[in-house]
């Protein structure tokens, strides 16, 4: 198969960027939404569906169209500790080649919320995301596993002075993870992401009601930056990823998101992709059964 290594590397990057576990993350007045390309800093009970489309470059200058439908379920063990399981079904089409499609490897994750500061709307979690080699289809899933210890942080700016009140609805989140592969010939990578959010519900309810009506009063415009920097092998130092502007619409029991995926550099692709999310808060839909911590 042409460019098998490129595709494997890209698949690795894509898989590691796919969010593994989302949360109903509350710090003081702040609710961090479940962002799409970068995992939020909280732990929670939730079910997430995402569809993504993007074109990825091959070595010879041609490109492959990648469609991916992913599902992820996160379950709290205690109120601070959650495990998650997920996978995705991927189709890769490139001109002149047969279409490659199948189920990707099973992703397993564990995440622990270390610290929450309600006054400063700050949240910190640590976790490990993993992809279990050989659990997906031969065409899509790699035969090696990856493990990514990751730090997740979020900060809302509701603690700014009133002179800067229009910035109070702003929040940033970030993730930083070092990815290791079980196959020593596969390069390691640092997966890093950032989001910049402006919460219109926060503006309306806590800063100044500017008279927005639904659905705009429930919207959170967001820019996500999801990147992977190769740290070993011949790709060492190379960074690929996407910059995703979009919007998240939040309701009581779930949220819907839509983002463009803009390749961050030419190695990351050409043309704008898309990411669509539907996300259910199980802690709110089933608060007395599957939506509450086991302990």
């Amino acid at each position: 198969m042409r460019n098998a290594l490129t595709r494997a590397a890209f698949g690795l990057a894509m898989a590691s960027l796919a969010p593994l576990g989302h949360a109903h993350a509350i710090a003081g007045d702040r609710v961090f939404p479940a962002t799409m390309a970068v995992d939020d800093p909280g732990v929670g009970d939730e079910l997430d569906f995402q569809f993504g489309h993007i074109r990825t470059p091959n070595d010879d200058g041609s490109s492959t169209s990648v469609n991916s439908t992913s599902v992820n379920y996160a379950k709290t063990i205690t109120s601070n500790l959650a495990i998650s399981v997920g996978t995705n079904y991927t189709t890769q089409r490139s001109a002149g080649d047969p279409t490659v499609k199948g189920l990707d490897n099973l992703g397993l994750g564990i995440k622990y919320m270390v610290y929450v500061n309600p006054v400063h709307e700050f949240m910190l979690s640590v976790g490990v995301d993993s992809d279990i080699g050989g659990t997906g289809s031969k065409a899509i899933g790699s035969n090696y596993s990856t493990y990514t210890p990751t730090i997740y942080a979020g900060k809302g700016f509701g603690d700014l002075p009133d002179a800067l009140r229009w910035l109070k609805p702003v929040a940033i989140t970030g993730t930083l993870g070092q990815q290791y592969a079980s196959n020593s010939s596969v390069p390691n990578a640092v997966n890093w992401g950032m989001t910049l959010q402006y919460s219109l519900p926060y503006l309306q309810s806590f800063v100044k009601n500017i008279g927005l009506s639904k659905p705009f009063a429930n919207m959170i415009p967001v820019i996500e930056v999801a990147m992977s920097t190769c740290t070993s092998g011949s790709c060492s130092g190379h960074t690929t990823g996407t910059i995703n502007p979009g919007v998240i619409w939040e309701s009581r029991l779930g949220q819907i998101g839509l983002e463009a995926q803009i390749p961050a550099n030419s190695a990351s692709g050409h043309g704008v992709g898309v990411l669509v999310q539907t996300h259910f808060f199980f802690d709110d839909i089933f608060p007395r059964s599957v939506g509450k911590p086991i302990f």
Partner: protein
Amino acid sequence: MKNFRFFSLAFRSRLSLIAFSILCVASIGQAFAHAQPETQSPMAGTVIKAPTEVRITYDEALESAFSSLVVSDAQGKQVNNVKAEVDGATHKTMHVSLPALPAAVYQVKWVAVADDGHRTQGSYKFTVK
């Protein structure tokens, strides 16, 4: 193997999946959740004549024993002399009566505990002219 079939089905008809999901979000009616304010009086950031009460209506029923609403002045001193009450019929509105307030900036702080114990909080300011 059921799941595997579901994934490929989801892939083939992802648009209907998304539509279905939107429907689910919109239609699950009687669950409980993290209560968020739907309407507030006075509204956040407004400049108004002295209000006689603060009234917030949430999108969820509240547990009155654990929910609270306090109004304080710029020095942080509580200005409401009575406790906030949760409306007995809908359980969704929390309100507190206010004494005559002089012109100043005031802060509302609320804690809303939904029926299932989920807790949310919020704070905002209004100005009496």
